[in-house]
């Protein structure tokens, strides 16, 4: 069957909605875990110094929240396009999608940096 613009947009909306739902679940779990960890550290009085891992968790969750916002905006612009047929909504939806995909390599780099930051002190300790 020959695809139409409407059917293709409807498919994008369906799959993007599913992605938003799963990503929101993941994000809520991440925020819950971060708050639980900070609360636990406060309870056992282990919060005298700034905990690097907590800062990392918070940075990760903030980045995740920004990504979820981009996904939701893209989805809302697509839904608006489906209703109003305004070309500008479509352009803005794809702009938010582009911003969403742009965050991916940044996250990879952050994970790589965190990995290097963990490996280098371990290597220094090994050779000392």
């Amino acid at each position, binding site marked *: 069957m020959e*695809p139409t613009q409407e059917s*293709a947009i409807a498919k*994008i909306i369906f799959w*993007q909605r599913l*992605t938003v739902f*799963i990503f929101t679940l993941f994000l809520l779990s991440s925020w819950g875990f971060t708050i639980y960890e900070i609360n636990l550290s406060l309870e056992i009085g282990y919060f005298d110094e700034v905990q690097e891992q907590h800062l990392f968790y918070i940075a990760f969750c903030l980045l995740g929240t920004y990504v979820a916002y981009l996904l939701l905006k893209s989805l809302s612009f697509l839904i608006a396009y489906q209703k109003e047929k305004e*070309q500008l909504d479509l*352009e803005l939806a*794809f702009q938010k*999608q582009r911003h969403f995909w742009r965050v991916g390599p940044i996250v990879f780099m952050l994970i790589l940096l965190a990995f290097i930051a963990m490996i280098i002190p371990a290597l220094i300790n090994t050779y000392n």
Partner: protein
Amino acid sequence: MDPNLLDDKNLDVEYRNSLLKELGKVEIWLSILAAFGFIAGAGLFFVAMSALEDKNEGVFLLGVLLMGLVGLVFYWSNTAFKYTRVIKWYDPELITNRLEHLFEDNSRLWRATALLFIWLFGTLSYIIYGGFFG
């Protein structure tokens, strides 16, 4: 006042051109992600293989989940790579390569993303609640 500003057809062409520019800009980021995906998929494959060799049932199940993840990561990378090619060679003048075909490919990319996220979320939940981490 420029009479062309009131011309709906002219405005439509202008919007269409800016939409095409916007669509084209995503190519670089998706290419990087697709490359990362192929590398991550290969790395995960070796982790999954070592988990599959384990005699413990829980670890074996984790290996199966990871193997599924490997398949989905490769599927996503392949879809993203194909989408970048479609954007690169997109020509609105060709009847076989219209905007709806491009949107169809975009929907395939989102399908792959949704499936990958579902599987990844399930695998992560199994790793955390199954006591494999921490």
